[in-house]
């Protein structure tokens, strides 16, 4: 996967979801979006690379909530 593109997409999702004071809730919403719409391979790639390319703080918090996929590749 092109991880830079995935990071850009995750940051975009985060920027468009980041409204309000409850950051925990926002991170959960972003994580839910990634789970519902990204393939397991894409989710695995973003979990594995999260320290390499810059995720925004709220996107990183959402990625921390993702469960590493074990099937569906």
């Amino acid at each position, binding site marked *: 996967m092109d991880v830079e593109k995935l990071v850009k997409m995750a940051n*975009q999702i985060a*920027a*468009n979801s980041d409204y309000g004071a409850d950051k925990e809730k926002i991170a959960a919403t972003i994580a839910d*979006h990634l789970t*519902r*719409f990204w393939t397991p391979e*894409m989710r695995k790639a973003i979990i594995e690379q999260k320290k390499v390319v810059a995720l925004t703080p709220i996107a990183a918090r959402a990625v921390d909530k993702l469960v590493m*996929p074990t099937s569906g590749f």
Partner: protein
Amino acid sequence: MKRRLREGAGLIVLDPREIDLVRSPHVQADFHLQLRPSTNVAVVNALSHVIMAEGLEAKKFIEERCDPEGFKTWKAFILDPVNSPENVFEETGVDPEIVRGAARLFASKPNGAIYYGLGVTEHSQGSTTVMAIANLAMCTGNIGREGVGVNPLRGQNNVQGSCDMGSFPHELPGYRHVSDPAVRALFGNEWGVEIQPHPGMRIPNMFDAAVAGTFKALYVQGEDVAQSDPDTHHVTNALSSLECMIVQDIFLNETAKFATVFLPGSSFLEKSGTFTNAERRISPVRKVMEPLAGLADWEVTQRLAQALGYPMNYSHPSEIMDEIARLTPTFTGVSYEKLDKLGSIQWPCNDAAVDGTPTMHIGEFVRGKGMFKVTPYVPTDEVTTRKYPLLLTTGRILSQYNVGAQTRRTENVQWHDEDVLEIHPHDAENRGIENGDWVGLQSRAGETVLRAVISERIQPGVVYTTFHHPFSGANVVTTDNSDWATNCPEYKVTAVQASKVSKLSDWQQKFAKFTEEQLEHLNRARQPEKVN
């Protein structure tokens, strides 16, 4: 719509161009909000801001029909001065008084309908704009009766039908997510297969994976991705990376040039089925002649499934509709017999609505209470720079249909035989460009050359073209930027530079050579075999 306008309905147009609807015989828009491409969310928020700040909202509708907590949060958001027309003026370019006038007009009418096209969806905040539009309709009480509502005008005649049937990588028919075990079991039992609980890839993900070598085969039916999708260099690189690509179409289109296998398609006159339009109206399409290629499209797909080892055995499209009715609650009452009897049916059509549902959301929304969503304006990454100081926005013309695969092979080319670049006189003069000159158009994705048409339909700083002819290479210039939620490409916003040139772009020269080679292959294949 034009009839109602001629009868005196008010008209508000939001478009970066002065489109025909702004001023045409017997029709004159009350307000034209000529916004800068990419600022839809800011403008729609500003309209709602004015309505709420001036107390013009439909208080009774909101109280009775909408979720109070959602409304409270949204109200606090929308009343923030950051969303005022004056505050967003610098970004949107729309005179605040015009925004205020439009908001007052929309809120003052007993019925207000909102129609939108791809100028809403083909943006990095396309989804957010749709939500902002829904907020605007709810806060003015314009949902759930005839003559109001939010009406998306689709890019093709059966976009709605494709969506209804689960043409998303994360849904099964009836907008049901694949993560729902009960839904998977329902379809799995019918089809005798196990359905994965994970979303699949969207088209841009497929192209990325093809280039990475992890995505090997593609079946493209009735779509010309090599011309229609953004960032042509990336798309053709992806198509060339596949091990197997099957193209099924009624023409040897641009994508077919990359195919390993070509299967002839059937036109709408050669097959039976249904189209569903934006008002959820399922209309029958009846075969009037046998397919020239021998098989209707669904029969080709069925043969392919059988060849791959899956026993797909429908004997008529009506059996496919019966299966849809068995599996999809909103289609339970739909059958070919009923379609023949009624002429067309608007879903939901089931025991609760035997003849279908002309108007949705009467009295109650599908989810219960209407949910206002906060819609912050997030500027696109595709911004102008010193290197790329203009914004390109792309669109369509009436006489050509989409990539023109069907219409530019007809006499319609008499109306539109090439895509041109509309440029404002001010931008043209700065660049020494005159009407009819060749203009090189460069973006971070690529470069193409188009003929200039100097026009005041667009504002300074904005240029416009169509994408009906493959040689124009409009999508060589558009980028991989896309909507945050759906990945719908941002065709409407590309930062570019334009300059006068004397020859075609490298891409166009390569494209001409590649096309010539492909036609030679075709001609050779068509020659009768020589007998020694």
